[in-house]
């Protein structure tokens, strides 16, 4: 550690620390355009000039790359410094005359006009931050300087306009550019957004959502620069507990379990399938989940209801039954939408002065306390329009220039066609089975009901069981349901599971196959048929035998045994023959 004085204050830093950093320790801000922590300083903008006094020697240096040495004295705001900065800023202003950040900084030093020229279009100050970011940090090596003298500029390889083969579109160059000379179009779309909620930018390393368990960040390998080029690695540098591990791989863990609770959830109906509502096409048409995230106090807007232009909406339309109760998509009622739409209305009323319109087919306030909540919302002055909205279109509102939205619908209560102007539309899209519901179903041998959700063993008597012993269902994988219903079903399933664990014994159905070894000739027809490998061959007795614990009693081997040596208890040939004779007892004789 060494000691130095900055503007008369002593500070202790490691030898070699740039003066700019040392000054920050004293809360002295030295202006700079081209310093970026983590990137090797380059002293290009020369705005950070300071005066260093060492013994009797005084020198003007750039603070960003001048290393602190023991005993020196630094002045950051004396007249010599100001003069030097003024001149440098005047030269920058001559090159980039209309860049706000340069104009502001120059104005601070009393420079309004430059004697060195005027160029309103140029924005790049050739600081090279982007070049070093791209080569040193990202290691993509796309950007470089080309030419020399007044023609010097930052270029892509061979100055191609599209360098998409090498550029990984990470956006780091645009992020570090001090003057806004580099922009990236549609940055938010490219950086690994969670597809269902593109409400704001998301970094390559993040905590998936607030209630995530375990609540730790994960790295999206498709967005992470380190994983793509081997560069960056900044998150590992800043993480003091050294918890970042880029080499971690997905693991497949095999567990032996006796019972399984399937709670694979649901997905939201993709509202862009119904083009008439403009989702994905019109600004300020949101899905319910996006709106829910916006209302969340930890969400991108901190819980404020904002349009894309940052203003509060004056009116919001909530459209029910998107993709549900609709013969073209899902016939079933999605069940939770009416109530969350009412909650939205309540929160919007609470937080803004916006008018709220509910476009509903029927209000289904079926649960405990729900009808009371509905009455309360009506008292709050929410506009209820009974009729499914036909379409959402862009329109203007009064004589304003900015576009607004118009919801067209038939109000079936007054029997009139209506057009309701709003600033924002929220689509209450249906809960639907996951796209891979089929595959999950095959893994667990679960049937699906016509709506595509998993089929419970019995709709009334066993709503959480399945036809497979030891496999239970909970939540929306079995059908749309709200939180209380999900909790009830899940606790019921958990209780069933615990009951079996505490009992420690499993009762098997007595339906089993049994081979009479006095009749079995050992032809081995049955051995390959058993899906549970319950049939083995006894090489000593030369007969096949059934392991009665493994046998599930399907009876395939019973039917297939050419010698009739296998009996299926509960469904013997004789029993079924008797049934056939019984149900055909009235059949006429020849």
């Amino acid at each position: 550690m060494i000691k130095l004085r900055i503007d008369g204050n002593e500070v202790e830093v490691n030898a070699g620390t740039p003066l700019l950093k040392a000054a920050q320790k004293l809360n002295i801000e030295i202006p700079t355009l081209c310093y970026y922590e983590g990137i090797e300083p380059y002293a290009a903008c020369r705005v950070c000039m300071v005066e260093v006094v060492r013994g009797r020697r005084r020198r003007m240096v750039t603070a960003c790359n001048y290393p602190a040495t023991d005993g020196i004295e630094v002045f950051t705001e004396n007249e010599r410094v100001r003069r030097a900065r003024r001149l440098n800023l005047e030269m920058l202003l001559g090159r980039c005359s209309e860049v706000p950040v340069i104009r502001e900084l120059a104005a601070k030093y009393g420079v309004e006009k430059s004697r060195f020229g005027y160029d309103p279009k140029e924005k790049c100050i050739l600081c090279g931050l982007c070049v070093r970011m791209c080569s040193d940090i990202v290691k993509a090596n796309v950007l470089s300087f080309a030419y020399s003298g007044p023609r010097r500029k930052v270029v892509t390889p061979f100055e191609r306009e599209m360098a998409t083969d090498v550029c990984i579109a990470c956006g780091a160059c645009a992020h570090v550019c001090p003057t806004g000379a580099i922009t990236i179009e549609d940055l938010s779309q490219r950086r690994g957004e969670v597809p269902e909620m593109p409400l704001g930018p998301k970094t390559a390393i993040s905590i998936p959502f607030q209630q995530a368990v375990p609540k730790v960040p994960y790295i999206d390998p498709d967005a992470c620069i380190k994983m793509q080029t081997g560069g960056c690695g900044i998150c590992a540098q800043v993480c003091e507990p050294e918890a970042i591990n880029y080499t971690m791989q997905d693991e497949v863990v095999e567990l032996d379990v006796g019972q399984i609770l399937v709670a694979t959830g649901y997905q939201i109906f993709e509202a862009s399938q119904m083009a008439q509502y403009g989702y994905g096409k019109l600004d300020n048409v949101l899905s319910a989940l996006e709106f829910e995230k916006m209302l969340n106090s930890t969400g991108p807007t901190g819980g404020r209801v904002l349009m894309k232009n940052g203003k509060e909406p004056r009116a919001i339309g909530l459209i029910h039954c998107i993709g549900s109760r609709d013969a073209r998509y899902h016939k079933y009622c999605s069940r939770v939408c009416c109530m969350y739409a009412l909650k939205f209305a309540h929160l919007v009323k609470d937080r803004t002065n916006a008018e709220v319109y509910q476009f509903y087919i029927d209000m289904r306030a079926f649960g405990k306390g729900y009808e009371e909540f509905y009455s309360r919302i009506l008292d709050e002055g929410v506009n209820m329009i009974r009729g499914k909205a036909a379409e959402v279109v862009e329109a203007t509102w009064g004589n304003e220039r900015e576009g607004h939205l118009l919801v067209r619908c038939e109000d079936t209560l007054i029997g009139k066609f209506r057009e309701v102007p709003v600033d924002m539309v929220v689509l209450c899209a249906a809960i639907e089975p996951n796209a891979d519901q089929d595959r999950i179903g095959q893994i667990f041998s679960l049937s699906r009901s016509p709506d595509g959700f998993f089929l419970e063993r019995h709709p009334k008597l066993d709503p959480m069981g399945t036809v497979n012993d030891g496999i239970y269902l909970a939540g929306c994988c079995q059908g749309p349901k709200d939180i209380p219903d999900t909790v009830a079903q899940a606790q019921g399933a958990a209780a069933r599971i615990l009951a079996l664990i505490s009992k420690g014994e499993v009762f098997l159905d007595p339906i089993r196959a049994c081979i009479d070894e006095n009749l079995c000739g050992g032809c081995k027809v049955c051995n390959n048929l058993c899906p549970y490998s319950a049939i083995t061959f006894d090489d000593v007795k030369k007969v096949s035998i059934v392991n009665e614990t493994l046998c599930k009693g399907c009876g395939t081997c019973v039917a297939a045994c050419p010698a009739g040596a296998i009996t299926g208890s509960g469904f013997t040939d004789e029993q079924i023959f008797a049934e056939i004779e019984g149900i055909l007892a009235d059949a006429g004789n020849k």
Partner: protein
Amino acid sequence: MPKPKVALYWAASCGGCEITVVDIEAHILDVANAFDIVFWPCLMDFKVKDVEAIEDGGIFVTLFNGAIRNSEQEHLAKLLRRKSKVLVAFGSCAHEGCIPGLANVTNRDEIFKTVYHETVSTDNTKGVLPQPKTEVPEGVLEIPEFWNKVCALDQVVDVDYYVPGCPPQSNQVWAVLDHLIQGKPLPPKGSILGAGQKSCCDECPRVRKEKKLKRFYRTHEIIPNPDECLLDQGLLCMGPATRDGCGAKCVKVGIPCRGCYGPPPGSHDMGMKMISALSSVIDSEDPAEIDRIIATIADPVGTFYRFNLAHSILYRVQDDVKEKRP
């Protein structure tokens, strides 16, 4: 004490069963010593009236071979039943119809058409068909009435025991006769004598694997591996669905079992059981491929019901298809 009386008779059969009785070699003398043969038209000159003269139940045992397909055979079966204490369905024809039973894939009219009209060597310009009764100047001639279907013996009269096989193996025949000669207690009625309880595979020395069949072969199409299961090699061997007791003689020399010993005790319908077993081990889940594999079975009914068509659940071809199909 008079020797117990014994009778042998053949109905619709080839005579092989009679030969198998003689095939017990020197033991035939023991039989002759132990029993008084009262009726055996194949070997000795007895008349029906000799049998009719015997008091009911006077014959200790009758070995009846051959299926029943006309009124004369029915008459003899009923007569012998009445006269015998023990009636044995001897051989596959009496047991379950056997090869004559395959006539059940057609009917009397078709058979007559073939026999009396269509065969190349037939010269029947007048189109004469056998009539049960024919008037001639001397009176009325009677011949037995030919039936529309072939029956096993127990479909006509009550049968006490069965000795399966086409023909029954001579060692098994001697075992049965020896049992009778020694006067051992008789087994429960309906028992199958001279055979085992398991399937033919039990006596087969070939090595069997777990089965997966991609096609079937007829015996002239491949030369089977001498040590491996014939069915595993795609040959339609009825062994798994056939009762043992024959000593697996056919399969030992590379000929697939035809199923002459009939179904084992657990089987209700030999052909259907074999159909079930075979199709279960066809190695395909694609309907078109399954059909292709099944098409390699030349004659399913003739294969699966070669010996027991008359005794099977469906027992004969119905007229359904002919009536309903164009």
